[in-house]
């Protein structure tokens, strides 16, 4: 029992570290593709946490990645922090709902990517009082589908290669 708890805890810590690393890697080296679209590699870690550990752990990984990612980049509590927090909050909530209804990983990933963009746009609209930014919504949401498929496929590939943990 204690061994199991320790193993889960270690896995959670590793996934959080992976999420933060991917988040920073993406923002520093990869950057936005096609103008303003981000791949969302860090979502792979969230998806893995969701399937490996559970819903609560997924929320922890997502929250930690936003907080520590922006802390390391020095953007905490700036507008970019709030934008990314809005996206992550919405996408995490929707992914939790998806998991509750036992959706497939790929679908959860796509919906997570879409709602992430949507949440970000909502926060930008509120923060800058610019409802016109909604013009980019169809472009962003449409672009989120391929990135969601990509992260979903990667997460699935990783999950089939590692030993599953007993789910509490």
């Amino acid at each position, binding site marked *: 029992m204690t061994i199991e708890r320790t193993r889960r805890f270690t896995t959670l810590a590793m996934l959080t570290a992976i999420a933060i690393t991917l988040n920073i890697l993406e923002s520093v080296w990869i950057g936005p593709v096609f103008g303003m679209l981000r791949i969302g590699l860090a979502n792979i870690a969230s998806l893995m946490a969701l399937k490996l550990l559970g819903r609560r752990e997924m929320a922890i990984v997502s929250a930690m990645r936003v907080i520590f990612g922006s802390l390391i980049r020095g953007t905490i509590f700036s507008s970019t922090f709030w934008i990314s927090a809005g996206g992550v909050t919405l996408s995490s909530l929707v992914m939790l709902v998806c998991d509750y209804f036992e959706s*497939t990983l*790929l*679908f959860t990933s796509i919906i997570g990517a879409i709602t992430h963009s949507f949440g970000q746009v909502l926060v930008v609209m509120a923060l800058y009082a610019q409802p016109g930014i909604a013009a980019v919504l*169809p*472009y962003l949401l449409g672009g989120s*589908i391929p990135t969601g498929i990509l992260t979903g496929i990667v997460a699935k590939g990783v999950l089939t290669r590692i030993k599953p943990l007993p789910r509490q």
Partner: protein
Amino acid sequence: MKKREWIILLAVIAACLLGSVLFYMRPKKNSGYVVKVQHGSEIVKEFDPMVDAVYAIDGDCGGLEVEVKEGRWHVINEKCPNHICANMGWMSVEDTLLPITCLPNNVIIYLEESPG
């Protein structure tokens, strides 16, 4: 993916497309143009051609009214003898060859780009 998930995904894509179509088809709120009504040498009225309304204008011969509808405007209820101003018909931002002129009333209605 499950069938139900495909349906949800297709619905999201459809909503996305519909939203973008609606967004680009919507009438612009601020047209970037202003219609000015001049009586004699002073401008007595300025209005946005994209805002539907009816404006009453005083003139030397009993005045007239300007009706604005769906980005177009024309003269109605004119009190002048020849009704040339009303017969000039509808004007719009894309289709304004001449200012609407009512000589008996000494009123000219013309389009200009708004500075904002």
